[in-house]
Every structure is written in C-alpha cells, then in structure tokens.
C-alpha cells in the first residue's frame, strides 16, 4: 500500500511537470518542415514578413485527407509557402464535416476546411458557418464564371452565397476488368442498366458451396461507391421538386430504381442473393477494405465497379495485378441521353466564419482553387479531376485514357451533384438507411415507405 501512495505522488509530480504543455497551449512543440503520416504537418522553411510588411502567420487548416493523399497534398502546400513565405501552414487530416460543425460551434474553428464533398455546403452557406467568399472575389476582381465550370460553382454555393470553392472534383464511372470481359465474350462495356444486369450475370462466378467468388457487379447501396447509383444521376432521379419538397415519392424513377435493384439481385445472385452479397462483402473485409489493397476490384473479385476517378491512382499505387478499362456508367433504359454523364462533386474548401486568419486563408484558397498550376499539380498527384477551364485542358492529364473518361464525364452537361439543402447530408443519410432496409427486405410496401421517407426529410428542417 505504501509503495502505491508513493508511486501516485511521483506520478503527480510528473504530471505537474508535464502539465504546462497540456492545457490547450496550442502552438507549442510543433516541428517544422515535415510531411508525415501523422496529424501534424507544417510547410515551413524561412519565415519572414511579407512584401508589404505582413506579419508572419501560421494557417491552421483541416482536411479529410489521410495516408498517401495527405502526404501528397503537402507538396502543393509547400509550393504555396514558397510563394508566400510569411504564411506557414499547419495541416491536420482525417477531419469530417461533423468536426468542422462542432469546431465552428465551439469557437475553435481552423482557418480553412477541405471537405470531401459538397453534401453540407448549403448548410454551411445558409447558417453562416462559413464566410461568404463573394466579398473576397469582388475585392480581387475575379469573375468566377470565367474560371470555374457552371456545375462546380453550383454545388459550392447556395442561394447566391458562395461560401466554398471547388478544388478538384470527383467524377464517377464504370471500371471493368477487361480480362474477365474477354473470357466471358463481352466486347464492350454496358450502356444501360439492363445490359449491366446481363453482363453481370455472365461475369459472376460462384464457389462450389454456392458463395460468390467473383461478383459481376455489386448492387448493394452500402458497398464502396455503389452508393452513387442511388443518388439518381444515371436514372434521372430528382431529390427535390420545384417547391423544395422531397421527391422520393412523387418522382417514380426512385421506386423503379429500387425495384430494378431487387430484380438485379435475384436474377444475378439468386433468391438468397442479398445474404450471399453480404457475406461476400464481409469476406472482402467490409467497408474498410475499400481503402486498402484488399479492395475487391483490385483483387479481381469484382468484374465491374462503380467508382470515382481516384481509383486509377489507387490501382497503380497498390500495384494491383489487373487489366481494366473505364467508361461512363450505364444509365436507365428509358434515358439514353444521360449516357456519358455521371455523379460529380469533389473537394469543397471554405473559410469558417470565426477563422482567426481569414485573409491569409483566402490567399491559400485562391491559390488552390483558381491557380492553374496548382490545380494541375494537385490533379496530377491525387488523380482527381481539376475544376478550372484552363486546368481541364492540360495535355498530360488528358493523355491517360483511363483518366480521360472521367474528365469527359465531368464536362458532360447532364453531370451533377444532387440538390443541396440546409439540412446538409441528413437527407443522404436517411435515404441511405432507407435503401439499406429495403435491400434487407425490411420495407414491405415500397411506395408507402418512400412516402414516409419523403415526409421525414421534409420534417427535418424544423429540428432544433
């Protein structure tokens, strides 16, 4: 017992010694010039006052990036620092939109946030969580419409408030394993959903015990990026009607899509297809496997996949041993004019309304979003679609046929991101859990279920 009290006391002393660095004394102990996998990175070098005597600042920026991409982003930040030597950057990765909402609400927001998608843009613009960038654009005499394509400026603003700018976009299309196509005697990628089904049936291989060995295409909504199909881009589904009410019940394409999915599962994988697909997914390693070398398309366990343009980079980075090609994703049978388009929408960057170094953050934001060189460099290293007219013309990016497909999808006039509203990603989450229930057979009456969902989404705005 004595030994213990002595130990506690010594621990106490230890803590007293350490605690000077503990209680939120941000800024201490930052090591410079490191692009590491850890959370803290500073693009540094010489720190000196700016040309017109600007005091040196350290921008605290957040992004959703992790791992390889996080490290790669650093080199562009270093370029920026070389150009603006009085601005240092501290970059923290693995941040979500929930994190930024919490930070803005607790007065601890960073100077800039790089979000993975436009889901919450309307929420940020309408609640005042982010600064309206129009003031900065006007002050710098920038006309956004001459630099950024219209769809991209649409998903980064809400009701005239441009509270974010697009920096790189994602475009979604079809990846298909050409070796498997050849073996199954399929000559070209499917263009309609019924062709997708026919081809998937030919490409699917079962194990002797009936479980799935190779899935032709994985239709479950929670699977990797298959989610995107259920956002309606390839079936012409609208999320909201003209009055701003949820259109899940009033737009018949949603019910048709879900019915198509159910038939797809039965026709390709059998009556217990859902269970087989779940087991298949779990064996791949569940959702986590998407970001590892165990990813199903890369391991040759998926013949076709709906995925974003970044998969090209992952495939080469993981040195996956597959032959593949890319194409636009097939569209609903009655909507041939949609072929060639797809879901788009990528990183959006904003400046929180209570950012401490907003002006310096604007310089960085302007650099990342509107500087052609920076855009091209980012697009090249991260294998994302650039978001300015100039950078979209870049010859090197267009030279890779796998990647070019996604540049074209981005440029297609029918490509879009779902309508954004002030409830943020709540509608996507509710829709996602509804589709999940539907797949699992927990929705007995589809139309009634969709009606209930629409009412629920419409009710969300009163929540407080």
């Amino acid at each position, binding site marked *: *017992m004595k*030994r*213990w*009290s002595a130990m*506690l006391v010594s*621990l*106490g002393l*230890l*803590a007293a010694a*350490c*605690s000077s660095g*503990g*209680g*939120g004394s*941000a800024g201490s*102990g930052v090591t410079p010039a490191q692009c590491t*996998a*850890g*959370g*803290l990175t500073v693009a540094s070098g010489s720190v000196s006052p700016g040309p017109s005597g600007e005091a040196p600042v350290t921008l605290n920026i957040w992004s959703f990036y*992790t*791992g390889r991409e996080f490290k790669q982003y650093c080199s562009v930040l270093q370029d920026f620092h070389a150009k603006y030597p009085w601005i240092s950057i501290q970059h*923290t990765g*693995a941040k979500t939109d929930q*994190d930024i909402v*919490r*930070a803005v*609400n*607790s*007065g*601890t927001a960073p100077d800039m946030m790089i979000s993975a998608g436009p889901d919450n843009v309307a929420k940020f613009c309408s609640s005042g969580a982010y600064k309206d960038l129009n003031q900065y654009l006007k002050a710098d005499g920038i006309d956004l419409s001459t630099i950024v394509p219209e769809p991209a400026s649409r998903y980064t603003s809400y009701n005239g408030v441009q509270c974010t700018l697009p920096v790189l976009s994602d475009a979604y299309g079809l990846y298909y394993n050409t070796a498997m196509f050849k073996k199954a005697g399929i000559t070209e990628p499917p263009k309609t959903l019924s062709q997708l089904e026919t081809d998937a049936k030919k490409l699917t291989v079962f194990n002797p015990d009936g479980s799935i060995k190779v899935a032709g295409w994985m239709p479950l909504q929670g699977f990797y990026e298959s989610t995107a199909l259920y956002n309606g881009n390839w079936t012409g589904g609208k999320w909201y009607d003209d009055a701003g009410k949820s259109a899940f019940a009033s737009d018949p394409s949603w019910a048709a899509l879900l019915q198509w999915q159910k038939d797809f599962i039965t026709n390709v994988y059998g009556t217990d297809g859902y269970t087989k697909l779940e087991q298949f997914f779990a064996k791949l*390693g569940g959702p*986590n*496997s*998407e*970001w*590892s*070398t*165990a990813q199903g398309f890369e391991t040759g366990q998926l013949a076709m996949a709906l995925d974003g343009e970044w998969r090209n980079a992952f495939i080469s980075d993981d040195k996956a041993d597959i032959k593949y090609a890319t194409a636009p994703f097939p569209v609903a049978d009655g909507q041939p004019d949609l072929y060639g388009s797809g879901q788009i929408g990528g990183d959006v960057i904003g400046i929180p309304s209570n950012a401490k170094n907003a002006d310096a953050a604007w310089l960085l934001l302007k650099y990342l979003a509107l500087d052609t060189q920076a855009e091209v460099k980012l697009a090249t290293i991260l294998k994302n679609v650039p978001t300015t007219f100039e950078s979209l013309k870049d010859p090197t990016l267009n030279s890779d046929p796998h990647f070019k497909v996604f540049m074209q999808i981005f440029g297609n006039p029918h490509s879009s991101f779902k309508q954004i509203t002030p409830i943020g990603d709540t509608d996507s989450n509710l829709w996602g859990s509804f589709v999940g229930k539907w797949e699992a057979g927990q929705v007995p009456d589809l139309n009634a279920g969709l009606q209930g969902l629409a009412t629920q989404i419409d009710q969300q705005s009163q929540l407080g």
Partner: protein
Amino acid sequence: MSGATVSAPIVRTRRRSAEARRKDLLSSVATHSVAIGLSAMFLLPLVFVVLTSLMTQHQSLTSDLIPHPIQWSNYRDIFNEQPMLLYGKNTVIYSVLATVGVVLSSVPVAYALGVIEWRGQRAAFLLVIATMMLPTQVTVVPLYLIFVKLHWIDSLKPLIIPAFFGDAFSIFLLRQFFRTIPGELVDAARVDGANELQIMWHVVVKTAKPAIVAVALFQFLYCWNDFFLPLLYTVNNPRIWTLSVGLQQFTGAHRGVLWNLQMAASVLFMLPVIILFLLAQKAFIEGITLTGVKG
C-alpha cells in the same frame, strides 16, 4: 468489512469416509475443469490480441493464429503511425490530475457526511447518491456551452477541473468506509481539543488509507478508460487526445485495416492498467467489494 473474508475457506468438512473422499475428488476435478475452461475463455482473447500484434500486416488479415515471422517492429511502427507518446502523456495528465482532484475534494465531503453528525445529513447524502443516477446526457449540452464560453473546449480543462468539485461515487465509497471507523477514536481526538480538520487528517484519513487508495485507483482507472467526455471535449484537437480517443480515431478514420498495428496499440494501452492491477490487486478487489455493500 466483508472484503477481509474473501480469501477465507468456506468448505467445511467433518469426518470423512473413503466414499466422501472419492466424491470430493470427483467434484474437485469437475470444479477445476469448469474453472480452467472459463479461464481460457477470459484469457484467450488477450492471447490472440498479443499474437496478432506481432504479425505482419498481410498475415493479420488471414485466419492464421500464430505469428510467423514474429514482427517486433510493429511496436516501433505504431509510434510512427500515430503519436502514442503524446496520447500517453495526455492520458497521464488527465488521469493523475483528475484523481488528485477527486481525492482532495471528496475526502472532506465524505467526512462531513460520515463522521460529523448534523441534521439534514441523510438528505444531503441521498442527494449525493442521486447525482450518480442522473444520466450524463441530461447535463452535457449546457455544460458544453459553459465550456465553450470559458474557451475550455479543445483542452483537457473540462475533464480535469470538474474533478476538483467532488465525485459522487468516491464520496459514497469513502463515506461508507468512514462510518466503520470507531466513534471512540474520533471522540477521543475531540476531547483532546482537536478541530475537525485535524481529526480528519490525523484520525480519519490515516485510518481510511486503504479506502482512499481504492478511490484513487478507481478514479485513475476511470480516467484512463474514459471515452465519451474526452471525445466530446477534445475530438477536434489531436494534440490533446487521450489514448482512448486517439486509438478510436485511428480505428475509425483509418482507411484500411491494420490489425497488427491496432492490436499493438491496444496492448500498449491496456498494459499499464493491467500491471497496475497486478500490483494493487488487493486494494482493487476490496474496493469493488465495498461498492457492493448496501448503504
């Protein structure tokens, strides 16, 4: 207190016949088989965790049980993969300071509730107990807003400072123990002219050392394991994450599965408290026993 009787033998036998001895042997074999089986169930998960922490990443994704080759470097790599030392330091700061706070503030309260006699004491004691039944969630929103106003979010302050205002569970435990201290001891000190502070320090705290150690251990452990409040108050600032939050974020936000590293990190996280337990087993078990005694 019942704690003292834990190790006392309970099976009493009278005169034994050969028949009875054989029966005893059989039942002893049966008992030990059951106990060994249960031990395996409780210990094997830990064994698998340790084994996996020594695998290569590729092997940890297979259904192999034994690491081959043994990759000790996981225990080095985990420090590169995430700032384990920083998390460890934060956890120690939180645990030690909060423990000090709870002990310093709870002892006098328990003393007032258990040793001094006064009207309204029982009601006050019940009120203390009642706060234990209040779900954290009822107070968490306004508290969060208070801490926002104080600029305490993204620091360890909202975790540590409230500990200096008494902790209901510790007060309860200490009070239960203080009540077992013979009244004559206290009265004798009073007759000698000692004031309450002196009595608390020289008589009660000295006598109740085991209870205080138990309370300190519990509080330390509680903080070491704590997750909800550290998550709530520190999630946005990785530099003050505790091991709980850091490990969860590593598991939740990491793209891809790194079982070997995750298991290595878990082993490092649990090791200190398991060692603490092995060293202070008796104090722990007596303390837990004390909580089960109705009051």
